[in-house]
């Protein structure tokens, strides 16, 4: 295996694109592959595709805005981490995945779950802790699962999903299945041993693993310069012998292109790929976070690059999407979320008699 690994190491040069912007103040992270901006994607007309991307991002945004209201109304409890501002990452990456592929995400995963196709109703019911939730009410906001859609959580231990994702990829490699396992994790996870162990293992064993680091510049209140000695994450990932590059995570089309490129090479047997998604969360870390550690002007600057409005503006400029269509999208989303909330309200709570279910498979079967 070693000669092949050597080749991959040399091919890892795109990471240097990241190097130029990572260490400096970088509210203007550059896209990895600006050249193909105008090309139609996946054989569909561009207008239609952009409309879908916009719909998917707006859907996540509105869903989470509703979650905030429901949290204030004490309908939802526990730790809730909002993805607002980062929607382009989940939506763009999802475009590169098929229903056969697997996804492993973090506790900030409403966006990934919705993008993956878990119905809003099942996600909302999970937030309510109802039996109709996608985890039967046992998981809550941080533990959304859907085995049928190969959505493996919802992991609330920072970096804890990475080894598991490597195992899903290992199983595919051992059986020769041309599938990709995509693992999302934060910049904070990059400091964990589990990330580095997994990166090494994935490169060593040539695993079909797509590592997507959502670098939103903070791990709770700790800014990346305060938790990483070298903030060029792609550069370091490349040192494990995998191609790695940085992407403007606020541009859904750039995300999609990068993810497609990475997924294609993984499917072709090229081993793992690492994407550093440069993004930003517009809201506090969680509902408990007073957000005292960030400069408000920094937040405002990033909000000016909102991935949703950015795509809207682009489509408007190109005359692809009128106000009427936008209103239509918003209306459909509102209807869907209203229905999801209504269904979650009506859904039953699990009987306390069932408390010990799902501890072992036997207790799952018994009741």
């Amino acid at each position, binding site marked *: 295996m070693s000669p092949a690994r050597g080749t991959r190491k040399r091919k890892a040069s795109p990471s240097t694109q990241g190097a130029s912007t990572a260490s400096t103040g970088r509210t203007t992270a550059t896209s990895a592959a600006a050249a193909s901006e105008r090309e139609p994607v996946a054989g569909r007309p561009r207008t239609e595709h952009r409309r879908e991307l916009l719909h998917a991002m707006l859907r996540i945004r509105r869903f989470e805005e509703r979650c905030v209201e429901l949290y204030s109304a004490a309908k939802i409890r526990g730790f809730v981490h909002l993805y607002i501002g980062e929607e382009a990452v989940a939506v763009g990456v999802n475009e590169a995945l098929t229903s056969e592929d*697997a996804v492993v995400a973090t506790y900030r995963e409403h966006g990934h779950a919705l993008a993956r196709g878990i119905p809003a109703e099942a996600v909302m019911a999970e937030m309510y802790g109802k039996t109709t*939730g*996608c*985890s*039967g*009410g*046992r*998981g809550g906001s941080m*533990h959304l*699962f*859907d*085995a049928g859609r190969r959505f*493996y*959580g*919802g*992991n609330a*231990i920072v970096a*804890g999903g*990475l*080894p*598991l*994702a*490597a*195992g*899903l*990829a*290992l*199983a*595919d490699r*051992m*059986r020769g299945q041309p599938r990709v*396992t995509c693992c999302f994790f934060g910049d904070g996870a990059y400091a964990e*041993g*589990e990330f580095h*162990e*997994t990166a*090494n*293992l994935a490169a*060593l064993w040539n695993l079909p693993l797509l590592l997507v680091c959502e670098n939103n510049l903070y791990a709770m209140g700790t800014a990346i310069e305060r938790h990483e000695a070298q903030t060029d994450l792609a550069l370091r990932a490349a040192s494990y012998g995998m191609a790695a590059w940085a992407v403007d995570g606020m541009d859904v089309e750039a995300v999609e292109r990068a993810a497609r490129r990475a997924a294609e090479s993984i499917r072709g047997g090229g081993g793992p790929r690492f994407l550093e998604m440069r993004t930003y969360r517009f809201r506090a870390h969680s509902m408990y976070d007073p957000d005292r550690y960030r400069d408000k002007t920094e937040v405002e600057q990033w909000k000016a690059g909102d991935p949703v409005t950015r795509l809207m503006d682009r489509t408007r400029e190109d005359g692809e999407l009128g106000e009427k269509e936008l209103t239509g999208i918003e209306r459909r989303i509102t209807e869907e979320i209203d229905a999801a909330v209504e269904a979650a309200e009506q859904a039953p709570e699990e009987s306390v008699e069932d408390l010990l*279910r*799902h*501890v*072992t*498979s036997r207790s*799952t079967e018994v009741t």
Partner: protein
Amino acid sequence: MGTGRADERKTTYREAMREAMREALRADDRVFLMGEDVGRYGGCFGVSLGLLEEFGPERIRDAPLSESAFVGAGIGAALSGLRPIVEIMTVNSSLLALDQILNNAATLLHMSGGQLPVPLVIRMTTGAGRQLAAQHSHSLEGWYAHIPGIRVLAPATIGDARHMLAPALADPDPVLIFEHGSLYNTAGELAPLSSPVDLDRAAVRRRGTDISLITYGGSLPKALAAADELAADDISAEVVDLRTLRPLDDETIDASVARTHRAVIVDEAWRSGSLAAEVSARIAERSLYELDAPVERVCSAEVPIPYARLLEQAALPRTADIVAAAHRAVD
């Protein structure tokens, strides 16, 4: 070597475990072995010696020193339909994989509302007694037995080493197998298997009427030796081998205490918060009125296990300690 020979034959605990893995690897191509030095080296205790030659490097998979990553990879592979056997060199280094074992393997089924069972087997060596000093002498199987969602086994005999793996692999949930380091060289006859091992059942290794010696793993030979000595003193000791530390087989413990009315629990872990404490509490809860004497516990001294031979031996349960505890209960 064939499998399932009808006649009794000489073997060792180590070979019995290897034979069990060989059988599983031959029977089911979803099974593979993964861990540090399981392949070229043959396993750090020689358990997997020769398996690489038969099954190749994909299925006898040498992993880097990344306990968290390869245990987690075992979990992911199990979720994806394979049947991994993950070997961790010793319980001591399993602490580096504790996150994966507790936060993923043991919880995924529950957190997913029953969608994601994890059919994973993790084997590891445990225990002290070989002058390996504090960091290589832990007995932490009791910690693992604390965790709902996983099954914990401690095969103590050649027969269990040979026959507990198959039902462990058939279990849809994570199973941890603790192999006491002092047992690998145990030589003896492997009796033919009459019926598959029931992983919900403890085993009564010796029948007795005066006292129950309740133990598991590396302490079983000591308890059996103590029973021999007690017999010479006209005390009939029953020896219960828990062998499944989670879930505990309350019925077998209850029945034994109901027969003998006295119990000594022998556990190589530290006494405080130990499995011995759990068994003792259960006897108090379930069988208090059966008891003719307070429950006795023989555990390790509350000290990091020292290197010096005499000190190490003094720190661990000894046959003489078990005999003395039994006398206290009976006399």
